[in-house]
């Protein structure tokens, strides 16, 4: 159906400016529905064929009072006619539904950018709440911007008056009015939004009608109003041919788990305890019981991982997920899974730390914690997702490793991957490589005995023998095990052997990891190395540098333990290595220890992603 989408109607005004890309930010009160407006605008653009990337920004978990700065919620989207990599640094167009939204976001707006304001919200009380002494509409604050003042409350009331909604509900359609106005301003197709509203609110037709009416009113207001002469159009992007959907990282990750369950033929078990920003994985999985998904909302994170360990022992595709504080609580149990050598996926959607930190902000400060955050020698595989659309594939990869090597695997995401979205070219599900599972079925020892720690000669994995299999009764646990038999052993030599075996098994996974390929200028002097959600910013920065005639190469790690075989060889090829991280230099420590190269860092811990400019400047500084 996607291909039957109507493209934007020809603009009525003659003065249409065509842009390669535009960054738009919707900002308003938590109650103003900015996330919905943003997502609708995004989807319409996606269906129209633009490339895009989004970055929502919620207020911290607590609900702040209406009209205040902490209460501001925003959604930023970049749309373009070429493939882009981030949601952009600073918006070209800002929608501000109230003074607080303006106050908090104006500083980011490009000089000369377009500002859409809901003038009805600019009354005494709101101005005061936002901390404005004088009215920014009057005092020259907005000089240098193209300002579109719209009395949205009144116009929305007017628009919806015959739709049957009343009272509080009336102004709820405000966001659709704004959406309509932007649809006109940026030549977005209108049908997708209208269809969506009708489908979404099917159960409450009057609400559906109100939203559609407001949307159309916004659109016509645009056409009618004088205040806005120029409109913009952004042509579809020449993305690789294929069918696309717009997806965020949490959803793609949840789908990846469901896919891994299909591909392995193992029932999916997700044991977890809600925590921002990981909860949405639970919410998504809980909706798909027809895939046989078992979600267990445990009493705490320890029970979450504990239940998953039980599920793994019982032969499920066992997964647990949380964020920093919860992962800390799981540490002891992950060490148990490592000792028992059971397949387990542990998802850490990183947020700002330490402690409760900044729950709704992105940060990459759990890398060393992932590598070393367990007592004793317990090296476990660690993977990190590079972008929202990467989550699906890498999650399947995590499952493959966990099952093939009988080991817990740590899968790192973060707030930016989890809540950001981008177009994802749908894979052919029938072409996905199946995950081969071999449950032990027969005794593997002399005269009918079963040896739970008899390792596979290739993978060093021990057999997976699930309860219910006659003849394979066996006991495992957290005390050191005797090689082969798995009996408890305090023998010195055995402890050395088992410690080495576990480490070797994990190191050995390197054979399944494709060699890294350098992007950009092979022959550059500077290599920019990244991991996780900085992928987009780094690539975009490198692209910018190269468009400006500079030379730079980039490399991105999705496998943090073990690391790809050819990493060292590549690193030694470059005179300079730069590692940008949203932490104080954690990957840098690992790289320096491993390869003894004097890698430099670009580090930021401000609860927000890198601006592309921050990276380009550093690159230029190092290469000039």
């Amino acid at each position, binding site marked *: 159906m*996607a*291909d039957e989408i109507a493209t934007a109607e020809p603009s009525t005004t003659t003065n249409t400016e065509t842009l390669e890309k535009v960054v738009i930010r919707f900002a308003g009160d938590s109650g103003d529905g900015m996330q919905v407006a943003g997502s609708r605008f995004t*989807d319409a653009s*996606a269906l*129209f*064929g633009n490339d895009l990337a989004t970055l929502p920004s919620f207020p911290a978990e607590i609900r702040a009072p209406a009209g205040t700065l902490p209460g501001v919620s925003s959604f930023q989207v970049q749309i373009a006619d070429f493939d882009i990599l981030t949601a952009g640094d600073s918006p070209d167009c800002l929608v501000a539904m109230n003074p607080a939204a303006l106050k908090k976001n104006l500083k980011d707006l490009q000089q000369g950018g377009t500002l859409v304001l809901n003038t009805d919200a600019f009354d005494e009380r709101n101005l005061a709440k936002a901390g404005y002494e004088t009215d920014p509409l009057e005092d020259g604050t907005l000089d240098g911007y193209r300002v579109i003042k719209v009395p949205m409350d009144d116009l929305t009331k007017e628009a919806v008056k015959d739709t049957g909604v009343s009272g509080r509900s009336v102004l709820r359609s405000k966001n659709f009015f704004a959406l309509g106005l932007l649809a006109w301003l940026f030549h977005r197709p209108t049908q997708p939004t209208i269809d*969506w509203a009708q489908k979404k609110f099917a159960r409450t037709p009057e609400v559906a009608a109100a939203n559609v009416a407001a949307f159309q009113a916004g659109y016509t207001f645009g056409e009618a109003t004088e205040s806005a002469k120029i409109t913009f159009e952004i042509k579809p*992007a020449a*993305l690789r*041919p294929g*069918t*696309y*959907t717009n997806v965020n990282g949490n*959803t793609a990750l949840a*789908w990846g788990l469901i*896919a891994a369950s*299909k591909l392995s033929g193992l029932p999916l*078990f997700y044991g977890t305890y809600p925590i921002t920003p990981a909860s949405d994985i639970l919410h998504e999985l809980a909706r*798909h*019981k*027809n*895939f*046989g*998904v*078992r979600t*267990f909302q*445990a*009493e*705490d994170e*320890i*029970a979450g991982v*504990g*239940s*998953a*360990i*039980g*599920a*793994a*022992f019982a032969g*499920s595709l*066992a997964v647990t997920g949380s964020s920093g504080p919860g992962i800390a609580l799981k540490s*002891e*149990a992950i060490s*148990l899974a490592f000792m028992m050598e059971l397949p387990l996926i542990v998802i850490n959607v990183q947020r700002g730390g330490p402690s409760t930190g900044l729950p709704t902000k992105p940060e990459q400060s759990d890398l060393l914690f992932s590598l070393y955050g367990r007592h004793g020698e317990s090296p476990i595989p660690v993977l990190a997702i590079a972008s929202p659309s990467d989550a*699906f594939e890498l999650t399947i990869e995590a499952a493959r490793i966990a099952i093939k090597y009988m080991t817990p695997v740590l899968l790192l995401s973060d707030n930016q991957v989890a809540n950001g979205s981008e177009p994802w070219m*749908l*894979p052919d*599900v*029938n072409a996905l490589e199946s995950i081969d599972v071999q449950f032990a079925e027969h005794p593997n020892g002399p005269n009918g005995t079963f040896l739970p720690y008899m390792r596979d000669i290739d993978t060093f994995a021990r057999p997976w023998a699930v*309860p*219910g299999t*006659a003849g394979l*009764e*066996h*006991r*495992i*646990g*957290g*005390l050191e095990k005797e090689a082969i038999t798995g*009996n408890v052993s305090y023998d010195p030599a055995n402890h050395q052997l088992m410690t080495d075996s576990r480490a070797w098994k994990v190191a050995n996974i390197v054979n399944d990891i494709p060699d890294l390929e350098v992007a950009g200028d092979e022959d550059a002097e500077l290599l920019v190395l990244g991991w996780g959600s900085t992928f987009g910013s780094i690539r975009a920065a490198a692209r910018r540098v190269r468009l400006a005639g500079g030379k730079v190469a980039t490399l991105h790690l999705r496998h943090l333990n073990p690391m790809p075989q050819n990493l060292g060889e590549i690193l030694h090829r470059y005179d300079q290595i730069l590692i940008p991280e949203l932490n104080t230099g954690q990957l840098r420590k690992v790289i320096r220890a491993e390869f003894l190269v004097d890698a430099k860092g670009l580090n930021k811990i401000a609860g927000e992603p890198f601006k592309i400019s921050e990276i380009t400047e550093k690159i230029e500084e190092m290469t000039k």
Partner: protein
Amino acid sequence: MTAPSYTRADFQTDQEVRWCPGCGDYTILASVQQFLAGLGRPREEFVFVSGIGCAARFPYYMNTFGMHSIHGRAPAIASGIVASRPDLSVWVITGDGDALSIGGNHLIHALRRNVDMKILLFNNQIYGLTKGQYSPTSEAGKTTKSSPYGSIDYPFNPVSLALGAEATFVARTLDMDRNHTQGLLQAAYEHEGSAFIEIYQNCNVFNDKAFIQLTGKEERVHNRIDLETGKPIVFDGGAKAVVMRDGQATVVDSSTVDPKAILVHDPTRPDPAIAFALSRLSHGPYGPTPLGIFRDVSRPTYEGQMHAQIDAAKEKNGEGDLARLIASQGTWTVKDPSSNGG
């Protein structure tokens, strides 16, 4: 296939049992092995999960599937096993420290959810494995390595706690009394959902004779109150009886009350109030103490409901289709420019 016929030996492993000579754990192990052998259910369908402690070594000695996990977490781990494989018979072996100290939260949640696991709490009122500190069931004032001046913790009453946590099956027995133990194991096994059995277990090294009031030749006569379904609650050779006196279980001389006034035991009462009242007859094995089944009521199991929802969802929406799922948020297609699509 016909039910296998087992002897106790079939449930023993090649691992030598490493409890102190004279430890009550040996007797419980024997009772459990004997009971399972009697069931004639295939050995491979049993899973024993334990935490850490002397009691928790139990799975190593059971020739079934087993996991000697980490301290206090067995009920959580067992929940995952049961949810994944409701067809298995899952048993949790735990101690008073493992279950009530570090593991208290998992225990009460497993009980309220009614996950189908049988929890055997070996209560020796001491931390055995770590060589003798007081536990959440040690009597107040107990002097131990960690309480040389006497413990100042007021102990839990495990039966009261389980009842307060909405448990559907709650019972108490004694390591020494194999028949009584096996009777309760049978009842727990038949119960659908989580079953909690407190087993008074003697730690002859660090807390010897803690249960002498119930095991001593003379003492037990006066102190052991057997709760038998359908029978009036009398003990001390009939000399004493239990009545409900305005809402509280009270011990009286049988002679002083109309026999009809004596409480007739019924663990199936939906309201746990009376079971709770009975649990207050003793706060530890220091005087007249009830043994037997305090509560045995039926409530839908956790895993039963979980799988019912899954089946219903499949029924309603059909087996999940991955291609449909990933396209469910709307898609658009980018045509190959070379192909002559518009």
